[in-house]
């Protein structure tokens, strides 16, 4: 580990309604892999975006190679030698791999772009990294994993001094992760500073030298990886947060009736022959790595995407679900993992969002009974403790957690008996998180049944009565909460065939 190359001090950043970064510090040295850890929404990505000039900071200083810097756009950061592999893919689907890698700094032959040279250079780069991708292939034709590798190759191809990997492993296979680590070690040899963001504890132990932990937008501390245990890191990440008591045994009565039975569900490549049962009053956890096909399963079940085959039984009766409308009329509610895109209607009010799924009951003849609508919306604002000035407030003005509560309210207003919660706490702050957990427990106590898809192991282990594990579109395991451990879940989640 060499000298300090990058220091961020007292970085502060607010979005409307969210204090995303609260005086955060970070120090990176040459030749180290520095892990940045923290729960979802802790502010890791935001910190990196501030560093690379995508967001402007409100306060604080950034020192790079001994000089204070302030990047106003990503290009400046790149030119200075700081590049980032984004968490969300940033590809130009219509262009080729090589064109993507060299976008913004094309090789030129006079006035013209020298695509041949770019292809050669890209091929060299891939050879050097040991990746097998054709540089002339169109980007959108690659798999997600390969696209991610291209992003990484692109970052490396800059003459970078600091490279930031924001959850690079999420979409990669084991083999690809191995390749990635080889590359990272190689870069470390070359005395680059590397920031590595990941939620996977095992990777942290394997690849990183130091760990900086963030919590709720704040800086918690920095540890030397080899001197600490997983538990130390977890403690720092979770801190004082009081979650619901973890479940040690199923709360569901042995003879609880099956409210939902799915048999041999097939939908596209990502859902293959999935079968499971959901009991009354049960929280059924769906675990797996990203891209395991859980969301696709739920969407197919809900009728949001077409399915090829499979039978669905509700309360023992076979039902035909072709559209979300069918699902809703059978009492199923779906809380999507992407709230902004599929959940809320941002520029409509809390009241309007709350009755979206059950408008029929809030009609007076031909007209919407706005008084009754507001009453019911207010009722659920009170029950869910949604923080909003009123039910006339536009949802766009609420914070993430409260937006999530509005979506939950939508399904409660509809009085759904079966609720599918896909990543219910994604991007939600810690306080709201525990409230939602609390709420879920109350709901099942009232006799509703919940399917909870979650990528957070702790969440799965704390909330579920039973756990279904998926990998590559197949169900690869099912565990009662009594027998479930992180290791057993991980084992099933990586059971590829």
């Amino acid at each position, binding site marked *: 580990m060499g000298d300090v190359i990058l220091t961020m001090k007292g970085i502060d950043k607010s979005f409307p309604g969210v204090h995303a970064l609260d005086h955060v510090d970070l120090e990176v040295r040459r030749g180290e892999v520095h892990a940045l850890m923290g729960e979802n929404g802790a502010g890791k990505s935001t910190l990196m975006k501030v560093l690379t000039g*995508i967001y402007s900071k409100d306060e604080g200083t950034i020192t790079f190679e001994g000089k204070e810097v302030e990047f106003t*756009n*990503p*290009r*400046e950061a*790149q*030119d200075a030698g700081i590049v980032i592999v*984004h968490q969300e893919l*940033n*590809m*130009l*689907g*219509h*262009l080729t791999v090589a*064109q993507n890698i060299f*976008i*913004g700094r*094309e090789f*030129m032959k006079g*006035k*013209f*772009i020298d*695509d041949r040279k770019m292809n050669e250079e890209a091929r060299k780069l891939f050879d050097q990294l040991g990746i097998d991708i054709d540089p002339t292939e169109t980007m*959108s034709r690659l798999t997600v994993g390969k696209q991610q590798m291209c992003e990484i190759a692109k970052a490396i191809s800059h003459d970078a001094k600091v490279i930031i990997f924001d959850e690079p492993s999420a979409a990669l296979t084991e083999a690809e992760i191995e390749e990635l680590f080889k590359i990272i070690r190689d870069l470390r040899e070359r005395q680059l500073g590397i920031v590595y963001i990941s939620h996977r504890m095992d990777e942290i132990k394997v690849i990183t030298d130091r760990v900086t932990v963030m919590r709720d937008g704040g800086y918690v501390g920095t540890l030397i990886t080899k001197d600490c245990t997983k538990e130390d890191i977890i403690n720092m990440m979770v801190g004082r947060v009081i979650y619901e008591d973890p479940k040690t045994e199923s709360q569901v009565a042995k003879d609880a009736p099956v409210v939902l039975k799915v048999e041999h569900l097939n939908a596209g490549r990502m859902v293959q022959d999935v079968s499971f049962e959901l009991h009354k009053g049960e929280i059924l956890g769906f675990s797996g790595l990203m891209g395991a096909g859980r969301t696709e399963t739920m969407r197919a079940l809900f009728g949001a995407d077409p399915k090829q085959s499979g039978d669905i039984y509700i309360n023992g009766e076979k039902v035909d679900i072709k559209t979300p409308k069918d699902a809703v009329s059978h009492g199923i509610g779906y809380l999507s993992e992407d709230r902004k895109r599929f959940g809320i209607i941002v520029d409509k009010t809390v009241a309007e969002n709350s009755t979206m799924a059950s408008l029929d009951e809030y009609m007076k003849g031909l007209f919407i009974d706005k008084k009754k609508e507001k009453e019911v919306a207010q009722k659920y604002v009170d029950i869910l403790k949604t923080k909003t000035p009123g039910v006339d407030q536009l949802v766009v003005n609420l914070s993430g957690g409260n937006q999530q509560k509005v979506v939950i309210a939508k399904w409660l207003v509809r009085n759904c008996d079966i609720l599918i919660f896909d990543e219910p706490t994604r991007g939600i702050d810690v306080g709201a998180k525990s409230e939602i957990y609390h709420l879920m427990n109350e709901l099942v106590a009232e006799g509703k049944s919940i399917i909870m898809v979650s990528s957070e192991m702790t969440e799965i282990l704390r909330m579920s009565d039973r756990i279904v594990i998926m990998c590559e579109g197949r169900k690869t395991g099912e565990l009662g909460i009594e027998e479930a451990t992180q290791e057993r879940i991980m084992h099933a989640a990586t059971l590829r065939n």
Partner: protein
Amino acid sequence: MTNKKKGNAFTNNPIVRAIGVQKIVVVLVLILLLVFFSVKSSSFWTYASLLSIMDYTYYLAFLGIGVTFCLITGGVDLSIGTGMFCYALAGGYLITKLDMPVIVGILVTMGMGILVGLVNGLIVSKGGHAPFLATLCTMMIVRGLGAIITGGSSITWPIAGTPEGWTRNLFKFTLPSGTKIPLGFLWVLIAAVVMSIILNKTRPGRYIIAIGSNKEATRLSGINVAKYQTLAYLICGFFTGLAALAYSSAFQSMTPGGGGGVELNAIGGAIIGGTSMSGGSGTIAGTILGVFIMSILQTGLPKVGLQANYQQIIIGVVLLVAVYIDVLKNKKLS
């Protein structure tokens, strides 16, 4: 199943992939149309007929090339049809009514095209207006402008044979023997090649495609998105100016307030040629082919004795089919 596999074998053939499935289909349709018209109309395959098809193709091709750039950025330019008339009116007005040198008229025509293109680009990229709305407004503005400049009068560009009539030779060169050479085809060809190169081989072209493919990612790559977006509209404006020259050379006269609807033929041609309405992909060669289909329909349908009203219905349906193919293609991609 076997069918599907065959299709894949066909679409995966390297030659097919290099040319593009859509372009092959378009060429086939083009050939079909040509065969149909030559069977139905004895006069279709004559040199004169070719000349008149060319007259239609020039201005549509220029408009098509220009608007392809806007479409590739994920935008559109609705002002091109009306604009083409407006600029030609203004230029012609200077030449014929104010007796200015022809070159001044040409420069003004081109200049107005470029200027309106620039304004469109700025309104879209800096003003943040939806391209559709912005160019709808400029369409209304140039419509009024053309009429106001000329005092509402139609304009006839200098006619062939007069000293100022040399502009007409720019696109259709008359040899001393009286034979006419479709010179404009050469210009269209050159423009197509040059713009193809710009689109595929230079940075501006690359960035214009990138913007249409993923605007945010392009911005994150440190590219000045506003600049290249504006450039796309500027190019479109430039070609609208060229189209105005081509139109006045081929058809001499234009009435103020006209030109509405021409943009549809150009946009339609681009889409038939495989340019996507949603941006990110498109080729100049495809646009030229698509434009050919449009102009052959326009010149061929009257020759087979079809009443004007049916022609419109047919062109409307052709457009719908072309877009549907585009939609299906996009569905397959995702």
